[in-house]
């Protein structure tokens, strides 16, 4: 079953090609075996000449980034984008969510829907749709939200995963908090699962773990692509009896977003080392899993700087408080293990009820997938997708800043010009405050 990806805006169209790069390398390796075939079916369709064409639609309101991505893919010689899978306008959305959602989205609805329909028809079976976008700008966030709405209307029974990139806390775009709040509030009603990467976190991974001196957006996007690909590549669920999962998005959503109030997912991968040190590193499953578990509990996204003092509270102390001892409570976790000796890995540490909320039994809360095929040059790789309180603090900060700005009515005239009123803002704030409240009271 296949996933159709919609890349939206500048960020979406920069992360997308990196993602397909990582995935296509695996597709080539498993030339004759089941894994390679599953990868190819899931993400590419093959032309009569055997070329891999990504199952993707590229959408942006200005042409520069799409041009760059398409030509870069073509140069790789391994995969490329479809010739007619792209749509760009001449003038961007000006970092204005209202411009993207109220003007550009509806204006180009038919064209974009047509492009997606063509990709979907090329799939034998559709596993679901994935929208890749940022929340800070105007196109990714505004047009992306509108397109997600259209996809939901057109494919009511398909799974929709939104991959969001959250901007650096210290401004890439001044109105980024407004755009983020509006996007999240709307997506919460439309999406099945919202997978988030934060630029700040990925930046730290690049500087501390990967030792990159001058970090560029390409470096950041590569890490995001690595983590996202490690989630989406084919894997075997516990009861799958050797057949690669055919419904990845559905299984992901089913495992993790079990309640409509809780849809925010974060990703954590280990190990992450600079490619120059990979030859000298050896990894063992017990060590990797122990670190990963502590990363989950203490809400650290890297192997460095983990706080080993944080422990899940004992049974009697189940009160949900944001600040309490730094413990990150999970709703549900999905552990994906790839590589050598994967069946010997002991995952019991993730099944303890103390990690989870009391109203979901831990057998329901924890799932794991495995694949013996090594991933992206790592002999062993463990990825944890969690629905937990991990994103609570950044979300709260984002809303706090947006609310302060809203209270002084700054920039509102820019949104009102395109049809978003103060009422719309208030509705969005209310929805997100509800999400924050739900997550902080998790116990």
């Amino acid at each position, binding site marked *: 079953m296949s996933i159709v990806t919609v890349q939206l805006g500048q960020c979406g169209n920069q992360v997308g090609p990196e993602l397909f790069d990582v995935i296509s390398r695996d597709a080539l390796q498993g030339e004759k075996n089941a894994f390679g075939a599953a990868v190819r079916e899931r993400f590419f369709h093959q032309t009569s000449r055997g070329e891999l064409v990504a199952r993707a639609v590229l959408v942006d309101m200005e042409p*520069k980034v799409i041009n760059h991505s398409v030509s870069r893919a073509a140069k790789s010689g391994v995969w490329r984008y479809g010739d007619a899978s792209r749509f760009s306008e*001449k003038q961007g959305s000006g970092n204005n969510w209202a411009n993207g959602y109220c003007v550009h989205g509806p204006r180009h609805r038919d064209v974009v829907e047509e492009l997606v329909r063509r990709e979907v028809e090329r799939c034998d079976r559709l596993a679901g749709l994935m929208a890749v976008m940022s929340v800070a700008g105007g196109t990714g966030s505004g047009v992306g939200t509108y397109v997600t709405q259209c996809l939901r209307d057109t494919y009511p029974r398909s799974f929709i995963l939104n991959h969001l990139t959250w901007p650096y806390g210290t*401004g*890439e*775009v*001044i109105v980024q908090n407004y755009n983020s709040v509006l996007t999240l509030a709307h997506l919460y009603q439309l999406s099945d699962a919202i997978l988030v990467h934060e630029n700040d976190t990925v930046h730290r991974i690049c500087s501390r773990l990967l030792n990159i001196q*001058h*970090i560029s957006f390409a470096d950041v996007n590569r890490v995001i692509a690595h983590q996202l690909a490690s989630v989406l590549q084919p894997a075997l669920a516990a009861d799958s009896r050797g057949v690669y999962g055919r419904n990845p998005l559905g299984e992901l959503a089913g495992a993790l977003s079990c309640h409509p109030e809780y849809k925010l997912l974060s990703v954590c991968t280990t190990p992450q080392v600079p490619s120059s040190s990979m030859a000298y590193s050896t990894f063992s499953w017990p060590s990797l899993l122990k670190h990963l578990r502590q990363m989950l509990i203490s809400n650290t996204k890297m192997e460095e700087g983990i706080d080993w003092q944080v422990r899940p509270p004992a049974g009697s102390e189940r009160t949900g408080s944001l600040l309490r001892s730094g413990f990150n409570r999970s709703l549900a976790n999905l552990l994906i293990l790839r590589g050598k000796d994967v069946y010997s890995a002991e995952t019991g540490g993730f099944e303890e009820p103390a990690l989870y909320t009391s109203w979901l039994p831990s057998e329901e809360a924890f799932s794991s997938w495995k694949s013996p095929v090594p991933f992206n040059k790592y002999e062993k790789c463990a990825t944890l997708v969690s629905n937990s309180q991990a994103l609570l603090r950044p979300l709260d900060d984002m809303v706090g800043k947006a609310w302060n700005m809203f209270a002084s009515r700054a920039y509102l*005239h820019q949104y009102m010009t395109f049809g978003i009123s103060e009422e719309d803002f208030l509705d969005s704030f209310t929805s997100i405050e509800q999400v924050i*409240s739900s997550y902080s009271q998790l116990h």
Partner: protein
Amino acid sequence: MTQSIVVHVGQCGNQIGCRFWDLALREHAHVNKEGLYDEALGSFFRNVDSREINGGACAVGGRIQQLKARAVLVDMEEGVVNKILQGPLREMFDSTQLLTDVSGSGNNWAVGHMTYGSVYREQIVDKLRKAAEHCDCLQCFFLIHSMGGGTGSGLGTKVLSLLNEEFPDVCRIVSSIYPSAEDDVVTSPYNSVLAMMELTEHAHCVMPVENQSLVEIVNKIKQMSHTRRPESVIRGDSAVISGQGGLSGTEKPFDAMNNIVANLLLNITSSARFDGSLNMDLNEIAMNLVPFPRLHYLLPSLTPLYTLADVSVPTRRLDQMFSDAFSKDHQLIRANPKRGLYLACALMVRGNVQMSDLRRNIERLKPSLPFVSWNQEGWKTGLCSVPPVGHSHSLLALANNTCVMSTFMELRERFTKLYRKKAHLHHYLHVEGMEQSLFSEAVGSLSSLIEEYHLLDATKGKLMPDAPRLCIAR
């Protein structure tokens, strides 16, 4: 890719415009080695094959035949425009883009705005429309004019209000040259204040530039180039005041100053024309930097001012470049930003600067720059990979800072000094359509603008409590 049209009005506007087109050609010639008419060129130039019958507009991708500037030149006396038409840039403009008269506006805003404004209204709209029709996707009008004279100030603001009427959806970015205190035009305060009212009403963004700051920058560079130390020899074409490498041969007196403003316009549009890892379009400037519709006065500052000829000099320059952008020596108006409150700030970086360098410098500078309480991280950033001619990297900082109100307060004072004595007023009141109430309206508009800035500035240093958040019932 979008197109922009540059409208220059008055003597100052046209002189700056002339430098702008020269430097724009130089920049594109530097980058475009194959002589193909590409999208970047298309944003400011049309490609025309004059042998064709229908006017011969050529599409993107072909060879360059003849470049025509996307410009409209307006002046009420012929001297400056004639000089342009006799100079090396004459091929770039055709008669449909020019509007001239003979007698000038006599340094009188009312003559420019009302008299010529009504006489030439049809023609101006016509020429603007023609220029707009040549554009596939028109994004922005750039208006260049001075505030102190009659044509640039009066007719220029009339053109601005016509742009608002005829093309309400197109962004209007204005570069206004404000007169210094020692300006030789006696009535410049009247002209400036009357023009300010129009700018506050009809422009999306205004970048005020003061002649005095330009003079100081020119002097600084000249001083640098006169030292004999070998390691401080400046590369000829790199100085922000230099027109070297362009078409015009000898430098005329105001050229050095005008080149600075021309470079400002080139840098602002660089990210919209060229590729980069974080593109910043022109409509994003207005969106991010203008929190309240009337407070759209942005302080520009350009660094570096020159590159040293000796490339083996180590580059500590990158961090220095960021620090310089926030010192008042590099600003194009004389207000002191550290004394005011930043409402928002945009950094447009060109050249091979990585995102981590940008972030590191923002972190470094943030503590010393006071930002308004609801916009503590009010930074907008853009990375363009093509550097300007003669540099490996450059930075343009556009700040919306309340210190601009000190410039406006000075202007108001000079106005009041004259107005109290009713000096020279009769020249204005003689013009048909002009009434004394317009003066009080104009100074009233200026005062309320100053008041708005002042209210925000007053919050500086105070710890503003966070607004109480919405409470969700459990």
